[in-house]
């Protein structure tokens, strides 16, 4: 078997597993959050699996101290599939993303793919990325 054939069949096997196997593979997801300007509080990341739960009920959440311009947030066991990440910096440590009286966020935030909305948050599709069944890393910027 040559290399190409091997890769193709491995890909097909992986695809088959991810579609048909009830035991979907989980791996480590690393999210690199850049452009942290105020070194205070925590960077909070939420992972969503589809448009219905987007910015509502996250599949997983994790955080890290906002102690550098670049912060890494890791998720140990993320099943392969499609995800979108929403990130905010809890500058004052009150456990929520603060907004002003008109509902405009007053703490830094960002989304996977650096997706941006016009007059509101981006859609799930604009922020979605593929989590492989091996370790995966993505980068995004806080605004």
């Amino acid at each position, binding site marked *: 078997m040559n290399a190409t054939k091997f890769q193709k069949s491995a890909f097909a096997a992986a695809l088959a597993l991810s579609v048909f196997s009830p035991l979907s593979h989980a791996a480590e997801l690393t999210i690199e959050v850049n452009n942290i300007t105020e070194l205070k509080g925590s960077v909070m990341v939420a992972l969503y699996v589809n448009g219905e739960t987007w910015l509502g009920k996250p599949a997983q959440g994790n955080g890290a101290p906002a102690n550098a311009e670049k912060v890494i947030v890791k998720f140990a066991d993320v099943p392969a599939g499609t995800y979108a990440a929403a990130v905010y910096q809890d500058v004052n440590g009150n456990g929520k993303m*603060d907004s002003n009286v008109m509902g405009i966020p007053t703490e830094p935030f960002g989304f996977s793919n650096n997706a941006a909305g016009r007059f509101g948050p981006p859609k799930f599709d604009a922020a979605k990325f593929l989590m492989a069944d091996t370790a995966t890393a993505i980068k995004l910027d806080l605004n």
Partner: protein
Amino acid sequence: MNRRHFLSSSIALAAGSSLIPAWAQAVDPYYVGFREGLKKLPALGAFANVSSDVACSAARIEGKIPAALRGVLYRNGPAQFERGGVRHHHWFEGDGMVQAYRFTDEGVNHTGKFVRTKKFKAEEKAGRLGYSVFGGRVENPLPVTGPDSMNAANTSVIAINNAVYALWEGGSAYEVDPVTLNTKGPKVWAPDWAGMPFSAHPKVTPDGNVWNIGGGWNGDVAVYHINPQGELVNATLVKVPPTAMLHDFLITENFVVLVLSSASFDSKAMANGEGMAAAMKVDLVTPMRVITLAKNNLSDRKEYDLPNGFVFHFGNAFETRTGQIMFDYVRFDSASIMADNMKAIMKGDTTTDFRQGSRSQAMLVTLDPKTGKASQTAVFNRMVEMPNVDPRVVGKRHQYVFHTSAKETELSDRAIGFAGISRVDIHSGRTDAYDYGTDYVVEEHILVPKPRSTREGEGWLVGAAYNAKTQMTELAIFEALALAAGPVAKVFLPYGLPIGFHGHFYA
């Protein structure tokens, strides 16, 4: 042409193209058009791009600066219109440059410094324009997280208890250092009011209390009351019919007065990428809505209708002895000045008849709470803008309004802006005016009261003008009650700056 010639000339062409600076290769019609227009109409220099801070330690003076005129004139206005060979499509988009003219015993010095807003820094880093509010979408827009992403801090500047703020219309006030003019950052009046719109026309009562508004486009208007120490006393959201642009407002002793133009946004045009200016529609049917709010209870409100119109600016409001409210404003028939004139100015289109969009008139309004009726009369028959009153009469009965104005009823042919100033008695219509001449484009002129005087208007009128002949900026000082006599002194900057919007003087 033989082959050899052909080859060498095409090589020259190829080599030459890499030597042409990036801007000359650009095909942005606004960037190129403005430069072409400037050759035909030097007055367009009043809207030319500035790309760095400026300073002058001793400006040349003609005449004699009055010995009692000491202090700082702070000004603000859009000054950087271009990045990476691309020019904004609307005057209002330019990054704000705060200027300070300091009047000292040694003479007059001048500093102009860009407000380093989030927008300024993001665009500077990107090396290109990344945001547009009024002029239509830019290519590859930079991310927007809220109104402050686009905050150009370019509309006015005010000092409250020695803190100086550069103001915009849609977002936070930006604090700058009173001496160096270095940017400190967006002002947060209260945690849950961070990033809220704080407009560029705060009203300061003679006892130092500051009232301001913000927003309005989504039907919520923020009303702020700040005490003379610069602390927020109260901030409230007031519901109004959504309005296209609530630029200015009025106060009296007891009331906040909001006037909503007959203007709305065409949401379809906005969705198609039109800027706010082009998407703003003024109809000839919808009346202008006047809303009065009691200062001590903002939910105590009355509403009035005025004939249709469009307004940016107000002079002043006051209550009469019989309980009526009177105010003056500058009325336009349409918002064409926003959509057409400013586009033409930015594009260098010298074929535009600027009189069309500039047709404005000062009006005097009376609101009668007993009958619920509003009435208005024209103050005088002259195209005007940038009304300014004596700071000692804000919210109180006033007699004089100072405007930038046309020499005759209309702008002269080919003039792109006003070349004159005037003082009008709003009760009698009597006028005292001065015309700089056709080489000039003037900006707002401000009344500076004389120390120890008490009479309204007793002071100096101070303002800058762009001299198209020298391509330089000049600041003139007038006896405010004798404008026709001409300036008593003039200050000449060694550079030309675009004309600005608004400012204040602090003794």
